[in-house]
């Protein structure tokens, strides 16, 4: 297992390098500098600023010095927030976004699997159509619509939950988690339904039935393990995507997360911040894909032994 992981991580290095390089080129060729403002910036000030952030050096020089810093784990200073380092900013947002993502994921998995399994038990009946239709809507319901809807219902009219914030008012984490989780719940529902149908058609399920096991055991013990493999495969990319895509929710609910930094940085042309967040998310994507693969291996005894046997 360890070797397997190590190999995959090594593969990641060139990927990251390319990502950094391409992003670097992208941001520096994008119009509008980090310091342009609607109030005209006097030439002398601009010079002072660019000098301070080495933007007056030739591009390749900037590139290599940046690479050097990144290798040492220093993402450089933020242009937008003077005095704040990118590491500092990312850290400040990471915890929140991770927590948000985690809750959203829990919501997604919980609702998704229940819906999917329920549907798979009686395909092409009402018990299938209802959750699957809901899933269809869930998938295509944009969070910029779902969020406000939830807020109006639970926040404004029912006054059950706070309409925004994070860790400021008890219960303010519920709506964001649901808003962010729903789309993924829908996907998971579809996946787990598909997986379960597949497994339920297997011979060994018939064997289990012939053994006189209760339907509950058959589903819970024999079917789920196999049936959820597609879900597991989906989890990794999903979680990464969830972190990256959290910015809409973070904006709607005023959550101090990474997603907002990611987008704001782009708008502010905060070069170091863009690069920092991009690299960070790229790493996340790679890590989570790896994790879900390892999980998939762990679930499947055959693969598990192969890997263990060989590593």
């Amino acid at each position, binding site marked *: 297992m360890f070797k397997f992981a190590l190999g995959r991580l090594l593969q990641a290095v060139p990927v990251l390098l390319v990502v950094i390089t391409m992003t670097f080129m992208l941001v520096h060729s*994008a*119009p*509008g*500098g980090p310091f*342009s*403002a*609607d*109030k*005209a910036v*006097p030439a*002398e*000030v601009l010079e*002072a600023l660019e000098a*301070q952030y080495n933007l007056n050096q030739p591009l390749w020089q900037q590139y290599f010095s940046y690479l050097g810093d990144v290798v040492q784990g220093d993402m450089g*200073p933020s242009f937008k*927030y*003077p*005095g704040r380092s990118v590491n500092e*900013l990312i850290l*400040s*947002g990471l915890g929140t976004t991770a927590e948000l993502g985690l809750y959203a994921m829990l919501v997604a998995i919980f*609702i998704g699997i*229940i819906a999917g*399994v*329920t549907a798979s*038990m*009686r395909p092409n009946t009402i*018990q299938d159509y209802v959750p699957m239709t809901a899933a269809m809507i869930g998938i295509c319901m944009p969070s910029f619509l779902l969020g*406000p809807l939830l*807020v*109006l219902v639970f926040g*404004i009219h029912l006054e*059950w939950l*706070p*309409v*925004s*914030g994070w860790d*400021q*008012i008890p*219960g303010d*984490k*519920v709506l964001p988690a649901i808003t962010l989780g729903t789309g993924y719940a829908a996907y998971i529902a579809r996946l787990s339904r598909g997986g379960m*149908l597949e497994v*339920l*058609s297997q*011979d060994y399920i*018939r064997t289990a039935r012939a053994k006189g096991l*209760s*339907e*509950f055991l*058959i*589903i819970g013990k024999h079917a789920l393990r196999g049936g959820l493999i597609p879900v597991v495969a989906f989890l990794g990319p999903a979680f990464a995507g969830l972190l990256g895509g959290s910015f809409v929710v973070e904006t*709607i*609910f*005023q*959550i*101090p*997360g990474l997603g907002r*930094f990611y987008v704001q940085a782009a*708008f502010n042309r905060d070069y170091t911040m863009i690069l920092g967040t991009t690299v960070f998310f790229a790493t996340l994507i790679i890590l989570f894909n790896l994790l879900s693969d390892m999980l998939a291996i762990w679930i499947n005894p055959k693969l598990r032994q192969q890997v263990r046997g060989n590593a």
Partner: protein
Amino acid sequence: MTFHFKGCNDQHQTSLSNFSLKVILAFGVLLGLAGCGSPETNVEEGNRTGVLHWGNGTEPQSLDPHIATGVPEHHIIMALMEGLMHKDSDTLGPTPGVAESWTVSDDGRVYTFKLRDNARWSNGDEHNAHDFVWSWWRALQPALGNLYAYMYFPILNAREYYRGDITDFSKVGVKALDDLTLQVTLNNPTPYFLQLLDHYSMYPVHKGTVEKFGAPDERGTRWTYAGNLVGNGPFKLATWEINRAIEVERNTFYWGNDDVKLNKIIFYPTENLTTEERMFRAGQLHYTNEVPIDKVETYRAANDPALKLTPYLGTYYYRINVNEPHLQDKRVRRALGMTIDRQQITEHVTKAGQLPAYAMTPPNTRGYYPPVGLSFDPEGARQLLAEAGYPNGEGFPTTEILYNTNEGHRKVAVAIQQMWREHLNIDVKLLNQEWKVYLDSESNGDYQISRAGWIGDYVDPNNFLDMFICNGGNNRTGWCNEEYDRLVLDVAPRAKTHDARMAIFTQAEQMLMDDMPVLPIYTYTTKHLVHPSVKNLSENILDQQSYRELYLEGSQD
């Protein structure tokens, strides 16, 4: 042959779906419980404990008064620091700040300030005239990248020092005669100078702290962080959580501490207007930084006292790129100007009590009323256009309105596009660009007509009119007129009396409006939602609050 089991026996069916049903219910209940956590809203709690919850727009970039540029920063710095002078929150006339009294020489060029002896920094340090000299020296270091350095330029030799023409700061017109006496010498009599002193770019900073965290002219050191920052204002910085909230609490060393009523102010970076408005409705905010256009109407209809609309010292206008071939002719520009039905726009599009603007400078800017040379006159406009060679808009090239991506701008642009089509029968396209791209195109003159806005830094026509001097950094229209420059830069400052000065500005603005490189559209209003419990709130054209006067009274709803 094998069978594929897609269905199962009913009994087991239901048993399982029952199960999942239960779980779902349980989950729902869970959510419910999680929700019913806070019986008391922020506002109610705040009213009890004297904590003001303030919607502040965006996350401040920096709290260093010599670096910060934005309005959100302004608000927080106003709470943390103070200058020599204050403004009366209603009349905006000068009132004492750190200086308890001041005298002006007869020629109006020498100001002498007497500082109060009980002024202290928030860490208890002595606060005296030398702080100002040092701070202003710092503010004029080019390396610091102070965008508001020009605020100092009325001071003798300040500009020269800043440009590096002279290197000896002692030649600059700032002197501490003794610990509590500060003397400032100006180039010309500058009637609005006292106002500038209340602008945060002229606030003093605490030498010890600044130097503790880096060189005086080093940009963005950590001295402004919570725990480090030392100010001289009514409040001191308690916590600063990025994108979450900034808390300031009573500064016990403040000379006027006894009159300060609030114990704490929490500034929220409320970027999303709709969210901010919902937060207000849910009782999470006392005060919102903005109000979504469509909500304004709702509150008005219900004539809800919470809605506060106040004229704002700012003009929303369109720049015209006078270098565009078909826009070089001022008749064309005037025609465009005359076919914008500003009444309709303010009443049906912006809908927040904005005033139709027919000149750059807002009316009653320190007693200045701009000349009225412009009106909604489609007939005349068509004539002008015809004279310019486009009878009934024929042959008029497709013209593009550039605006930065934003709902409000889009709406105005859509309306104007339609008006021009209707009245001038010309083809108009809209082009929205992401903010930085928009700035880029605008400053490169890479546009035809572009949306713009200007908010005054201080109350004086000068602040609006010196924008359009030849190649002025904020001109960006390519319009240039030596006579205009002479009036604004040379003649006006030398004017002996207030009225004479205003007359010159009127003349200048007349010239500007004749050539019409810009199409004024409306005068801004500030839109806030304010909880009735907030008292002593001042409504002025600078949208400036003095937090030391605000107080909360048990909510009345």
